[in-house]
């Protein structure tokens, strides 16, 4: 069993996936293509990367409130993240996650940028309020 880190639950559910780190905030309206799940904003740190089935770690959402509906579209198109971790959630992503059945947590007891890196396998259990690091030594070279 891996390390469990406590966090606050925003959107309830349980999911597992490989971490994708973004230090930039995300505006789902405009930054992400709802058909493919690929980040299309050229200025964005994740430009060209797919967020499909990943555990997306980013500080918080930004931009238009329509971003909530874009998360719903991503989910219906099967290209949504499997879960999301924020530093501090705000309403756009919180609402989007809930209507799309995507588990969302924030305020991890340990800074996610300290303990997580790209491709690490984690489990998000926002029913019970923790993030579990499954394969701590996994690294993709």
């Amino acid at each position: 069993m891996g390390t469990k880190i406590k966090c606050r639950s925003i959107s309830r559910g349980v999911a597992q996936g490989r971490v994708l780190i973004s230090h930039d905030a995300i505006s789902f309206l405009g930054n992400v293509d709802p058909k493919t799940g690929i980040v299309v904003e050229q200025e964005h740190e994740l430009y060209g990367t797919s967020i499909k089935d990943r555990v997306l770690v980013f500080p918080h959402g930004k931009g238009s409130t329509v971003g909530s509906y874009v998360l719903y579209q991503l989910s219906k198109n099967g290209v949504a993240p499997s879960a999301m971790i924020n530093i501090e959630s705000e309403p756009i992503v919180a609402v989007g996650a809930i209507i799309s059945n995507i588990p969302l947590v924030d305020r991890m007891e340990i800074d996610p940028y300290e303990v997580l890196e790209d491709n690490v396998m984690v489990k998000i259990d926002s029913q019970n309020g923790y993030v579990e690091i499954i394969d701590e030594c996994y690294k993709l070279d």
Partner: protein
Amino acid sequence: MHLTKEEERTLGGEDGETLQKAIEILVALGDIYGADRLIPIKSAQIAGVSYKTIGDAGLEWISDLEGKVKVPSILNPAGMDLQLWDEMGISLQFAQKQQKIIKAYEKLGVTSKCTCTPYYLDNFTLKYGDHVAWSESSAVSYANSVLGARTNREGGPSALSAALIGKTANFGYHLDENREPTISITIECDLTGSDYAALGYIAGKTVGSRVPLFFLQNEPEGDELKALGAAMAASGAVALYHVDGVTPDARKMKYGINNENIIIEESQIREVYDKIPDNTAQTDVDIVAFGCPHCSADELAHIARLLDGKQVEKDVWVCTSREVAERYPQFVDKIEKSGAFVVCDTCMVVSPASENYKLMMVNSGKALSYVPSMCKVPARFGTIEDCIKEALKGTGT
């Protein structure tokens, strides 16, 4: 956040998936903003209506929901007049999508009236201290400031969730401590009519999301307060303001001048009227648009008086709610006899039809803020009389 047994059951899914999601949204927002509980609301006004704004993403979500709203619920302005969309120059494809959105809301029991001034409509009038979940920024400002009701600025899904549950989370402007002024603004010159829209346009940029307390030389009326609040909610993010001796909270609480007090000069107000947008010195105004926010009965009467017996030479939109238009056919007739168009359910800010024009003239500080960015049409500002004069130009009247 404390939930009642009944609310816990809804959250557990016993009342179906739509209500489970709805209460989950309310609880999540309550947690984010530190609410202690859910409180009952009197009505809801739901954003996320114009197809131009929410697109297919929003349409899909609303169409998938099931259930009925528990309190009187109404919609923000749509992207077109729901009856006369063709006359507005709206494409069939857009109109069909827009109608689908309206139908999806109707299925949920939402009244399919689209307006930014619900407070003029039956079932949506408010009393001091009423709690509501309203969305449209000028309606939120009017409800909080002019009527002394209490609402946060809800997003589309949160307002719809509040409507379905009949409650909202108790935070922000629902609480006394967040309603006190945090900055004061003093105006030493006399103001009238659209001067208040110009004032709001300037003040919003400085105030941001704070709660301003105005000290004015005059006592503004309802339509003037509406214009002031709408402009501040657009150029800034003001959801509540007070006017010393005028608005209900200010009369009751007798707030004093704040440590941070700014003075707005007459010359700054003048600048808003005089400003010619970049690259439009040679461009003629090709549309004059009133009704941002939607016209009251008094505003319709005023425009009807000014247009009586005249013919407009340019496209003129007079935007209002269908219910107010239907209540005052005598004003509507006079306005339409002049060649102007009484537009219902929508406005110059949210309708893609605005994009067909080159230069718009408005008497609204809110439209002045939004039309250039949201419709990519430059805008000039004038009094209601200036706007009518521009509309009649060339007729020799």
